[in-house]
């Protein structure tokens, strides 16, 4: 059997613990640090990150290049921002309920709204919960 230690210097998996000096008085109160993922992804099984390509939702403070967190576990409702599949396209829109009809708007509403029709080939893909925006 070749002497593997010669070829691969053995690296300890954990650095050696140094037993010297006084133990930290803070040891018993250690807590895991804040993790942003816990905040923005409460439902990891149903959440997706999607990058936004245009500025059509700037009224909702979502700009080109931002990353939105989309949670499929939530149900769409009036004023929610959603990802919807309309035919072949996935679109980022705001839901508007007007006279028992559901519309998908851009924000500001520059383009004509799309009526969400149960019979047509469209569905809500997920609900946007957070937007990660790089401040410049």
């Amino acid at each position, binding site marked *: 059997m*070749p002497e*593997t230690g010669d070829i691969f210097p053995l*690296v300890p998996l954990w650095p050696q613990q140094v037993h010297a000096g006084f133990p930290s008085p803070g040891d018993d109160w250690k807590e895991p640090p804040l993790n942003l993922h816990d905040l923005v992804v409460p439902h990891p*099984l149903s959440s997706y*990150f999607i990058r936004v390509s245009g500025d059509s939702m700037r009224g909702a403070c979502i700009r080109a290049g931002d990353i939105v967190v989309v949670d499929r576990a939530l149900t769409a409702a009036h004023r929610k921002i959603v990802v919807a599949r309309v035919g*072949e396209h996935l679109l980022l829109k705001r839901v508007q309920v007007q006279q028992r009809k559901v519309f998908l708007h851009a924000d500001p509403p520059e383009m004509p709204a799309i009526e969400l029709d149960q019979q047509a080939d469209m569905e809500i893909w997920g609900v946007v919960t957070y937007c990660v925006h790089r401040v410049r």
Partner: protein
Amino acid sequence: MKPKIFMLVDAAQFYVSCERVFNGALHLKPTVVLSNNDGCLVAVSREARRLGLVRGQPFFQCQQIIRAHQVQVYSSNYAVYAELSRRMMGVLAQLLPRLEEYSIDEAFGELTDLAINDLTEFARTVKARVYQLTGIPIRVAVASTKCLTKIASALLKGDEHSGDVLDLTGFTQEQLDAALARVAIEDVWGIGPKSALFLRNYGVQTAKDLRDADERWIKKNLTVVGARIQMELKGTSCLPLEVKRPPKQQIICAKSFGREITSLIELEEAVSCYVARAAEKLRAQDGLSGRLTVFLRTNGFATNAPQYANEFTVDLPSPTAFTPELIRQALAGLHAMYREGYRYKKVGIVLSRITPLPVVQPDLFGEVSLVEHYREMQLMAVVDAINRIFGRETLVFAVQGWTRSWRMRQDRLSQHWLSRWEEMLTI
């Protein structure tokens, strides 16, 4: 004893469904996903099936249909499928406390102790919930045994108007007879092609025939395995849920090359890569392997080229999970088999005689030193940890090579939507 209730969940054309989650343009369009190396169709959408495409068909044989009907074609994107499978299983685990993950797209659940009044309604809830959370459409079958859930699932496969949900527990005897009579013997879970042929010769054509066959005759000819299937078809559960999977007794790593290769150096690279991957899996289950097999073959489809296939098995001097030792043994086997002048299409390796880690004994003659063994395992633990943290194959053995031009072909790969920032879904 209380009758048992099982549920089988399976995602129809799972790979196609995964592609569709991230690509709206594939919705309702004929779509297929290819196997490793873009060889065969492994997943065929309903729309593609209507055009006559079937699972298992070689890709090159259906070019004409694909072109004529603009069938959407994708290479297997396992990174995405594995992640969506994990999510689907996670959602199911929230609904079904006892769950057996049977394959990447199938799971059994047991409902016996859940006190559910309306099983069909519950099955619909499971289907709706999985679709909402993951975007994956599933079929849900309910019955009193695992084997019968498989029967129900086979019936759903052929019925587009079923709503993808079928509960056999509410069936009358006549309805059940009719259902079992519709399932061919080949489609009965656990009946292999050989047994099916044998049974057909004796007039056992359907699941119903098998259920009603003479029990002693079945046990005599199909052993206790066949007898259990028969019992399950009669509604008596004898195959319990395997909630905890037993560790694998065999680890196989074999893939076809993207092109035919002739040089020994490239074969060495491939064999070393497969050994490294298999050894990593072996260590993940805390196992040691006592036997290693290497095999290679030329392209069976190229009928006018000279053909050669061989395999080489070695019993290791002592069970090990140490990659360099396994690579050394595998390369010795490869060298013994390699013949010049052939165009090789596939090599693979198999690790078998797997024993759990803690039973290693220093042998009587002191050839295996426990200290040496621990040093090796420590080294491999570091390699595995680095590869886990910094990504697969961050640390490789030099013999695995760098270019890997023989790598499997994936010309039509969609993006790594869920694992790479630069490839994430953009809308």
